[in-house]
């Protein structure tokens, strides 16, 4: 019995260090980016931006999909909701990007809340298909809304930035580091709190969880809203990153696939799983885009996904945990 107490003490103590480590890592990255400034080729910033964007998307997806077991195929829909919130706000007013991001979080969070209510009636594969349908409906609406460019797409003029940042890409990367830090911190906080425990119970057996007093709907709504809001925030700076957005890019299959593949490869049961998965898959994709061809992008995601699902279905997290148990 004493052994159990010890292990529980340590599992209570370590999470606090993890949270601190996440914040410190984020701050360090910002500092590095500031120091490096415009001394390196802009390409590195663009590559870093993409990887950071996927850290946010994968981490956000995992809060509902990994912790709660509700697979969302509509990640691109949430991302695009964030994108087009910025597009709309950019056309109407000229607000700082941080305001756009807050609005994107609200819009996509609301969408997440709606998705959360769908879990009342839809589970498993039916829920997954419904989320895909939501994304398709949204894409159809955006494609036919001429104010935001419709199917032709729209150009977005980048706002001026202060002298602190060398280039706009430099600024966007720092912003994304901040957002990724927030997302990973949120995922960690959810996982270690009562919400995470409840979601884990829901994932294993929702009916039994209810019987144990877990308010499943409330937890699923919290998870779906948080997940949606973060994915929307990941999309908000995107129009400024590419300066031209069309529905095909914003609702791209690559976004939906990567948001699911990265947590699955990294591992869905711990906050650092999607982080590791996004860094792994994101880097490989960037390297392949440059060295082989940009078409190899999704191909390699597919191959890695198949390999991991067959060899290590619990992802990197599973491998590390099995190795830890083995070495004890």
């Amino acid at each position: 019995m004493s052994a159990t107490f010890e292990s529980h003490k340590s599992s209570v103590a370590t999470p606090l260090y993890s949270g601190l480590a996440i914040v410190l890592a984020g701050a360090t990255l910002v500092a590095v980016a500031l120091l490096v400034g415009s001394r390196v080729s802009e390409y590195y910033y663009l590559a870093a931006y993409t990887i950071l964007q996927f850290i946010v998307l994968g981490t956000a997806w995992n809060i509902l999909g990994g912790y709660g077991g509700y697979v969302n195929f509509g990640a691109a829909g949430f991302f695009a909701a964030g994108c087009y919130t910025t597009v709309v706000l950019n056309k109407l007013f000229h607000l700082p990007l941080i305001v756009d991001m807050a609005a994107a979080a609200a819009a996509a969070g609301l969408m997440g809340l709606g998705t959360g209510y769908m879990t009342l009636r839809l589970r498993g594969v039916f829920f997954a298909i419904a989320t895909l349908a939501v994304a398709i409906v949204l894409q159809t609406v955006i494609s036919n809304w001429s104010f935001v460019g419709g199917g032709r797409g729209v150009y977005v003029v980048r706002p001026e930035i202060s002298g602190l940042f060398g280039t706009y890409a430099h600024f966007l990367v720092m912003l994304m580091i901040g957002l990724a830090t927030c997302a990973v911190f949120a995922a960690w906080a959810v996982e270690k709190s009562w919400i995470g425990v409840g979601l884990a119970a829901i994932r294993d057996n929702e009916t039994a969880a209810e019987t144990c007093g877990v308010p499943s709907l409330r937890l699923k709504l919290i998870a779906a809203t948080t997940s949606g809001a973060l994915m929307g925030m990941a999309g908000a700076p995107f129009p400024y990153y590419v300066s031209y957005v069309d529905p095909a890019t914003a609702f791209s299959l690559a976004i939906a696939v990567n948001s699911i593949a990265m947590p699955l490869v990294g591992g869905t049961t711990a906050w650092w799983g999607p982080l590791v998965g996004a860094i792994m898959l994101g880097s490989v994709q960037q390297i392949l885009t440059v060295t082989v061809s940009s078409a190899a992008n999704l191909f390699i995601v597919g191959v890695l996904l198949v390999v991991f699902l067959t060899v290590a279905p619990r992802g990197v997290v599973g491998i590390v945990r099995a190795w830890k148990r083995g070495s004890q």
Partner: protein
Amino acid sequence: MSAAILAGASITKQFDGFAALTDVDLTVGKGERVGLIGPNGSGKSTLVNCFAGIIAADSGSIVFDGADITAAPAWLRAKHGLARTYQIPRPFHGMTVQENIQVPLRFAVGHRSARVISVEAQAILDQVGLADKASRSPKVLTQVELRKLELGRALAARPKVLIADEVMAGLSDSEVDEILALLTRLNAQGITILLIEHIMRAVMMFSQRIVVIVAGRKIADGLPDDVMRQDDVERAYLGE
């Protein structure tokens, strides 16, 4: 019978035109041990699901501990002290045995401190005889251990009423005795128990009162010996 703690009145439930329950009244007194029996498919589990809030009855009302809970969600009923086990065990496979017990301690009871939760979970595992399995996965448990885990998780919710849905099905005689002894101990601690069971020996030994459901209707409700002498009960169980 002492004052009622759980009372279902004229509960009716249909599934696609099939009458699973018709006008069933079932009252359980505080501290009582009630056995609920009936042939397979007679509606016992449907009744349990209505009580626990897993499914909603078409009509009828349920009063628990003085409050009308007819429309309350399952988690709220658990929080107020109405716990149940599942006929087919439903452990949380991704957690250890002890973490399974921690879920109701955290949610139904509302403990916050990880240390308190851990200590109390271990105490419950001691009580149901799973202390040495605390850090194992439910996947390696035997059938009887899984039933004990179900009971332990229900107990962790600090129930006033425990509905035990076929916790002994498929167990050996000595295992049945083990579970019966545990249920009797719990009842002595003041927990009201509604036992759904097919093993007649267990039901007769345990119950102070027996309720019989056949084809969704209550056909008998009384002292075990009286109920078992009733003609229609005999017919339902042994045929014409």
